[in-house]
C-alpha cells in the first residue's frame, strides 16, 4: 500500500487542480493509496511513524525540497520502507537529482518502480540525502585521522549526492565527499574585480567527519535545505540506508 504525505502548503487552493490530476493519474495506474495531509499540529515525523506502524511499505512525499528532506529524515529510521516523491511547488532539486519529473509525470515514474538502495548521511540524529553545508570559520576532522581547515575563511560542505561542475558525489559508493571551498584572491582582483577572484575547491573522500567551530558555542548547518544548530556536527555515511524510487533521468 502506498502512503502519500501531502505537505501543508498544498492546502492552498492554487494547487487543487494539479493535485486532482495527480490523484486521477495514480488511480489510473493502480497505485493510489492512503493520503495524509500535514497541518500545523500534524508533523512529518509523527505522520510517517503512524503510517509505518499501520503497515506502510512505500511512503511518497508530495511537495517541494523541504517536504522531501523532512520525509527522508523520518523514513530513514525504518528499514524495509521504500521512499518516493511527487515534486509540486517551487524548489525540486532533490527530485531532479533522482530523475523524478514535476507533477503528474512523476506518477509514471512511481508506477515503473525502479528502486535504488542509496546511502544517506547522518548528522547528529538527522539524515540527509544530498549535502550538508556549514558556513564560516570551521574545521573538519576526517575519519579521526586528520583535520582540514581553511587558512583564511571558506566553507565546508559534506556531499552524498551532488552534481557539481568540478566534482560529482555518488550515493552508492559508501562514502561522503568533504569539500572545502576557499576564495583565493590576488591583489588586483580583490581590489578592483572581486568577481574575478577564483575559488579553490578541496575534496576529501571520507566516511566520518566531525565539524567544529573554534571559540563558538553554537553553529548552524544546512542539510538538504533544513537548518540545524548545534555545538558540533558528527556526520557519517549510512550505506544503502534508504530504498528510493528513481527515474530514468536520474543523475546517478
Amino acid at each position, binding site marked *: 500500500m502506498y502512503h502519500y504525505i501531502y505537505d501543508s502548503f498544498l492546502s492552498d487552493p492554487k494547487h487543487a487542480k494539479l493535485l486532482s490530476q495527480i490523484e486521477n493519474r495514480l488511480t489510473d495506474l493502480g497505485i493510489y493509496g492512503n493520503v495524509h495531509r500535514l497541518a500545523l499540529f500534524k508533523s512529518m515525523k509523527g505522520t510517517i511513524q503512524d503510517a509505518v506502524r499501520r503497515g506502510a511499505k512505500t511512503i511518497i512525499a508530495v511537495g517541494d525540497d523541504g517536504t522531501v528532506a523532512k520525509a527522508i529524515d523520518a523514513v530513514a529510521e525504518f528499514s524495509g520502507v521504500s521512499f518516493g516523491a511527487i515534486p509540486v511547488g517551487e524548489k525540486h532539486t532533490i527530485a531532479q537529482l533522482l530523475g523524478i519529473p514535476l507533477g503528474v509525470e512523476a506518477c509514471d515514474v512511481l508506477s515503473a518502480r525502479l528502486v535504488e538502495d542509496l546511502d544517506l548521511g547522518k548528522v547528529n540524529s538527522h539524515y540527509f540525502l544530498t549535502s550538508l553545508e556549514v558556513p564560516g570559520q570551521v574545521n573538519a576532522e576526517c575519519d579521526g585521522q586528520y*583535520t582540514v581547515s581553511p587558512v583564511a575563511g571558506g566553507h565546508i560542505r559534506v556531499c552524498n549526492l551532488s552534481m557539481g561542475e568540478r566534482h560529482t558525489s555518488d550515493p552508492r559508493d559508501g562514502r561522503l565527499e568533504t569539500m572545502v571551498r576557499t576564495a583565493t584572491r590576488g591583489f588586483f582582483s580583490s581590489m578592483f574585480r572581486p568577481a574575478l577572484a577564483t575559488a579553490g575547491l578541496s575534496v576529501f573522500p571520507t566516511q566520518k567527519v566531525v565539524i567544529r567551530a573554534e571559540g563558538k558555542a553554537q553553529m548552524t548547518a544546512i542539510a538538504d535545505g533544513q537548518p540545524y544548530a548545534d555545538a558540533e556536527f558528527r556526520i557519517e555515511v549510512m550505506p544503502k540506508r534508504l530504498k528510493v524510487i528513481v527515474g530514468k533521468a536520474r543523475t546517478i
Partner: protein
Amino acid sequence: MFKKDGEGSAETIIANGVKVEGDFASPGNVRIEGIVKGSVKADGDLLVTESAMIEADVTAANAIVSGEIRGNITAHDKIELTGTARVHGDIMSKVLTVAAGAVLDGRCQVMLEGTRETVTTRTKQPKAVEA
C-alpha cells in the same frame, strides 16, 4: 600516471588556502596545492604543485613534485622533481628524474629493477640541481 595538470584524475584535492594536519591517507590519486603537516600516504599517484608546502613523510605509487616538501619521499615506481621543486629529505624510488633548478637536500636511493640492490647518493648541502 598523473598528467601535470592532474586535477581531472585526482580523487583527493587539497587546494591552495587549505591546511591539513594529521595522518592523511588516500586510496586513490592525490593533488596537493595547500599546506600539509603530519604524514601523507597515497595508494595512487601524488601531484604536489608549486604552491604546496608539505611538512610530512610522503608515500605514493608515483610522485610529481613542483612544490616544497620537508620530509622523506617514497614512491613505488617513479619520482619526478620539476624545476620548482624544493625537497628537504630523503628520496627513494625505482626511477628518479630531476629537472634543472630543482632543490634537493637529502639522500637519493634508487632501487634497481629486479634486485634488492640500491644506489644511494647524498647531496652535501641544499643546492639547485643542474641538468
